[in-house]
């Protein structure tokens, strides 16, 4: 069975597996700076996976996608986040709502669900990358899980960005990427979103002297 899969597809599968591994690593990581580095690494892997797909299929717009991923997710966003962390002085540990081992177990369950759900969809697809659809979905869910279980606002942003990575991988694996316009739009959205959230962080810290989101619970309307 394995011999039937071409080398490039195996390479893409490898990269996808690395992305999934990195998603688990992010779920387990307690330190904010290390988390950002892991995110950059995930972006790099995603970029490589896209590049391989581009070389194999010869689709030119995938090159642009790869370039976009490289600039945005490997260079710009991690840099912005690093700066934010340094300015806001939140180097310490990331407190999780649920302890890490439990989160990991939940993550494994999610991966199983994701693979199960993605199976019928990837059968419909004819791309060489279709095997990675389950992984992409799993990355989205793990990122979502990270957003739910973390206390600090900044880790939630990282989770949000990681979810976008998963979506990107899903798009690439199912249909060789979204149309260029959509991709550009999403990239811009993510960039603007992070900048706005950066502004919010400062406001939140000014207001509550902390970035813990549980302080915002009293904002609710009674």
């Amino acid at each position, binding site marked *: 069975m394995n011999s039937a899969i071409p080398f490039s597809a195996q390479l893409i599968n490898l990269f996808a597996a690395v992305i999934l591994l990195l998603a688990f690593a992010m779920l387990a990581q307690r330190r904010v700076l290390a988390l950002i580095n892991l995110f950059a690494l995930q972006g790099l892997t995603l970029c490589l996976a896209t590049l391989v797909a581009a070389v194999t299929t010869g689709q030119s717009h995938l090159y642009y996608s790869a370039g976009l991923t490289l600039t945005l997710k490997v260079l710009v966003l991690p840099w912005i986040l690093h700066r934010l962390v340094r300015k806001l002085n939140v180097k310490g540990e990331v407190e999780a*709502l649920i302890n890490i081992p439990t989160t990991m177990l939940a993550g494994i369950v999610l991966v199983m*669900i994701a693979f199960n*759900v993605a199976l*019928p*969809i990837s059968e419909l697809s004819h791309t060489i990358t279709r095997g990675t659809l389950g992984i992409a*979905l799993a990355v989205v*869910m793990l990122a*979502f*899980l990270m*957003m*739910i*279980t973390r206390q600090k606002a900044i880790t*939630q942003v990282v989770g949000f960005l990681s979810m976008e990575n998963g979506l990107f991988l899903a798009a690439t694996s199912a249909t060789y990427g979204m149309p260029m316009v959509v991709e550009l739009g999403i990239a811009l959205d993510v960039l603007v979103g992070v900048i706005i959230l950066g502004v919010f962080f400062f406001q939140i810290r000014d207001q509550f002297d902390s970035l813990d*989101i*549980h302080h*915002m*619970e*009293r*904002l*609710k*309307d009674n």
Partner: protein
Amino acid sequence: MTSLLPIDILLIAACAWLAVGLLGLVAPRNTRFISKTLFPLGAAIGMVAGFVALDSLGGPAQTAVLVIGLPDLPFHLRLDNLSAVFVLLLGFVSVGISIFAAGYFRKGEGTAPGLLCLEYHVFLASMLMVLLADDAYAFMVAWETMALSSFFLVTTDHRHEEIRRAGFLYLLIAHVGAIAILLSFGVMTGGAGDYSFAGMRAQELSPFWASVAFLLALAGFGAKAGLVPLHVWLPEAHPAAPSPVSAMMSGVMLKTAIYGLLRVSFDLLHTTIWWWGVVALTVGLITALFGVLYSTVQNDMKRLLAYSSIENIGLIAVGIGLTLIFHAYRMEGLAALAMTAVLYHCLAHSAFKSLLFLCTGSVLHATKERSLGKLGGLIHRMPWVAWLALAGVIASAGLPPLSGFVSEWLLLQSFLFSPGLPHPWLNMVVPVAAALVVLVAALAGFAMVKFYAIIFLGQMREPGLKDAHDAGTWEKVGLAWLALITLLLGILPSTVISRIDAATRQLLGAGLGDKLHEQGWWMLAPISPERASYEPMIFLVTIAATLLLGRWLVRHLYHGRVRRTAAWDCGYYFQGPRAQDTAEGFSQPIRRIFEPMFRMERHFPTARDAQPYYSVKVEDHFWHWLYLPVANAVGRVSTLIVALQGGRIAVYLMYSFITLLVLLLVARP
């Protein structure tokens, strides 16, 4: 320029109204410029629109396409005879109101005059566009513009809590109505996706869907017109609004809803089912009876008029119901008679009710008082307003020789033929409804006597009323114009009916016109002179002659020896204003007789009270039966939903996450 069609002129009129409104923004605080230049200009445009509509009556329908709005979705416009009747009404009545408004709006009252001028003229232009619209899209855009501009006009004095509340209630019910209308249009497209009225006419709906469309339209337009139980905004919004605005809303805007109902039930829907008429008739009767009963017990003069508007709308709905019944049984001649009564009552009511609302505006300006209990004897200080109001009161009470009598008489005439209906129950039950209509007419007379007598006759109840002054020239002209329309509608019924007959003919394929032409302008005999006829001139001449004769007799036969003495004064040496009947006292018999219809909170003085007082508060049953339960239910559901809002972002994210998971697991291919 000879090629300018009436519809083009009307479009220009709508644009001109908008332009006049925008000009008001140039100098929003310059009261003099706005009231003495812009409002008369608006009146002139109204006059043009009225005459153009009058001229186009009886002519062929004209269409136009306006390329504005969304791409591929232009505004279709159409001027046919039905629209023309209502444009006529809008044009001529707005002339009087605009002229009055020129003298009414003063400095420093609520919204800046420039803004008011904009809202007022946008309101006018949007009503014109409602009447001209020929597709659901243009209709809804104009309809909502109308609702919004009138909302801002109602909340002119938005610093008062209760006025904001009234405005909110109005906007809420307007939206509920708009949703129903939109759904009705949606049903009428029959799923073809063609939202032009021409497309709806071409649809052949099954009886079920046609009924759904009709009921939705009845609910939607009924909410705007004030049919029970969606009437509650009327008595709140009318007192809150400035008087010219109340006049415009009651006189003209309510009629646009009637126009919509007529358009849907007789033009857009092909089939007519007899029970639609029964529904409209029943709702109309309940509305009329409810409105007139509540109007008799009001102590605020504008609320009294607002309830009276509800009553009149009820009568119009009764007429529509009767028309539907006759139309369903293909008795087109009788349907035409009832339809004529409907259209005539629309015209009559818009003139006399605007007149009365404007009179209350003059009284309000002169006395700063809206409560009937603090007015009285104003005929001595405000003779112009009092005499012109008398015209409105007589018409509203349905007395000859003015306009209200003609339409109510026509309505009752058409009731007299209902025993001929080929349905075993209808021909027995519908004549009973006629008795209720007569009761309503009598009670309306009672309410109008109360309105007029308490405000204008008797002695002044408060010392401050001595400083009251009569209306200014602009106001007098505006009032006189509306009184003139009321008079003309009263004494020239045949002439008017032969003009508006074109609309009846268009909707029903039959009219009254032919018979009327044979008779001459002084006589109105809708079926045949042998059966029933009405000669308003005879009434007018008789009344005038009696008055003149009485005056002459008093002047010339009276001996002139005046002897002043204490008459039979029942032991009361002093007969001051306090000895007069009060507004509450006057309507006490009605409150007694119809006690179950009201929700009253009364406080009676006892013999031991140090400071005895009497108070009575009449409330609307529908608040407690319908509105409060709905509001409470919404409140309870909201508290349940608030429980979802824990304030924790993690929980919110969890909601999305669980939704995602469930969707992924459930929605399998």
